[in-house]
């Protein structure tokens, strides 16, 4: 990518999300550039879904800002901006078994968003849009009268993708879109998402729980641990120069496709006791252009040294 000015589509600043008194997510800072795939990686329960849903305005935030195209969206928005945001931001859900309305036909499910805002001139145009959306995810127009339970997991996930695509969005939050699927069809859905991204110039926030999935599809990767983003860098940079001990432990957990190497591999275990944050408090710091880490002053010094040698 390099130095050319990139357009910021989504911007999150000092975000905090609480469930009653429990702080699920805090100190979240990142930008998502137009056209990129930005991945958010962390173990289950770390707050990935919470961030994704806050972006979609499902969860309220307790602190900080979320901007979409420069407009603040984590507050009450007017009807006009609401409509614009619904059209431009869409979400693909983790569980294809739970994310479709079982009592509605595929036709209803895929046209739901179109109907809500009457995004068509007449019935013919609506049908046309729905057909195109289905075809674009490899399903058939004759599926329109069917119900969700008649489809396989992979097909259901593609219905969910069609439902988002029919809105012609610019930005998509894909919340672990393949982790609930059979291993045999994961690549199919991943390739579909890639293909759609190229065709429609989409921007993705791709959520995953392990690094191996995101390495080859992401432009940049953020690693989240217990509600805090601990490291953020371009994909290759993160794999080559991981700084934060938690990132290192995630990397060491990726299986190596070589039994000899895999056998002698040393697993790095992260406990959180690596840090001494008793006096020297951590902050969000840019160690190198575009490479951020959650660290205190002492750690920052060490990381900078590491970078120079490494």
């Amino acid at each position, binding site marked *: 990518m390099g130095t050319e000015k990139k357009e910021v589509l989504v911007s999150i600043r000092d975000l905090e999300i609480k469930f009653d008194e429990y702080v699920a997510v805090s100190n979240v800072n990142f930008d998502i550039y137009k056209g990129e795939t930005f991945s958010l990686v962390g173990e289950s329960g770390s707050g990935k879904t919470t961030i994704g*849903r806050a972006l*979609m305005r*499902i969860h309220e935030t307790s602190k900080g800002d979320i901007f979409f195209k420069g407009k603040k969206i984590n507050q009450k928005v007017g009807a006009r901006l*609401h*409509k614009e945001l*619904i059209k431009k*931001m*869409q*979400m693909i*859900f*983790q*569980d294809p078994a*739970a*994310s*479709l*309305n*079982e*009592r*509605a036909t595929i036709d*209803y499910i895929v046209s*739901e*968003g179109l109907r*809500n*805002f009457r995004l068509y001139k007449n019935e013919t145009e609506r049908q046309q849009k729905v057909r195109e959306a289905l075809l674009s995810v*490899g*399903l*058939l127009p004759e*599926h329109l*009268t*069917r*119900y969700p*339970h*008649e*489809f396989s997991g992979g*097909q259901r996930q593609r219905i*969910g993708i069609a*439902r988002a695509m029919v*809105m012609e969005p610019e930005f998509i939050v894909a919340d672990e879109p393949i982790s609930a699927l059979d291993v045999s069809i994961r690549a199919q859905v991943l390739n579909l998402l890639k293909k759609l991204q190229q065709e429609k110039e989409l921007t993705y926030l791709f959520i995953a729980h392990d690094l191996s999935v995101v390495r080859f599809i992401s432009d940049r990767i953020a690693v989240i641990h217990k509600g805090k983003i601990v490291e953020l860098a371009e994909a290759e940079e993160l794999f080559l120069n991981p700084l934060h001990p938690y990132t290192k432990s995630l990397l060491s957990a990726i299986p190596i496709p070589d039994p000899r190497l895999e056998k002698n591999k040393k697993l790095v275990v992260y406990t959180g006791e690596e840090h001494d944050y008793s006096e020297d408090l951590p902050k969000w710091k840019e160690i190198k252009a575009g490479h951020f880490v959650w660290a205190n002053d002492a750690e920052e010094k060490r990381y900078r040294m590491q970078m120079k040698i490494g």
Partner: protein
Amino acid sequence: MQDSRFEFVTVDARVAEEIEAPSYSYWQSVSKQFFKKKSTVILLLLMVVIILVALIQPELSGYDPMNSPNINRPEMRFRGISLQYPYGTDGVGNSVWDVVWAGTRTSLLVGFIVACINTSIGVVVGAVWGFSKAIDKVMIEVFNIISSVPYILIVTVLLYTFGRGFWQLILAMCLTGWLSTAYFIRTQVMIIRDREYNLASSCLGTPMLRLVSRNILPYLLSVIMTNVSLEIPAAISTEVTLSFLGIGLNVAVPSLGRMINQYANYFNGYPHLFWAPVLTLALVTISLYVIGQTLADASDPRTHR
């Protein structure tokens, strides 16, 4: 590699997506599932007959509790069971058969009207109640206060206020009767409200009322059916109990409850007078309950196929 025993096949991606199964229809599956059980079908037929007879027979007999034409003819009193008087006659010379059907008609009307009103209001209020945290705060207090007073007591007090009569009774039973249904629906809505498919609808900008009608209520059809199948017999019992105690319907309206009360006096000499309304009541409530339960099960798609 060349081997004439093998040949390449082309995979048609389209074929892989095709669904062989015949197209699914919800209501067809419901009716198939419902009619599968022979005993329920028999009860349903029985219920249809009871309803028809209860609606038509009182018109033909012209029975009127305010008017006993045979009251001065002692030879008409306490007649035994015969073809002309299938249940015999009572102490004022009325054919018990006529009295039972007139009372059954009242009971069925009360049961259906009250269940209908209470369920409609309860479902609509409960659906909105379960969705809105602001409404929940107020409604839960209202519910706690009203549900701490026994229902039968509320109805009694209301009846004393409105006066006795058929529509007064309906009003008294409906004024607070929908609350328990609403509370039940509220809890159900809260359980399924945050499921992913509802979040998906929110992300598509679906307004709350459509969310309730298209995403939530269809899922609750089966529990609503269960509720109705309990509500009708319960309403009938309330009416019978109140009339039995002499506070429900006024004497101008025929009622099984009052019959049971009166005929219980003759239980030693003429027990069939007592058993006629009691058994009819039991048959009606049990049939309605079983039919409702089967319908509730059949409307749950998990039982289909």
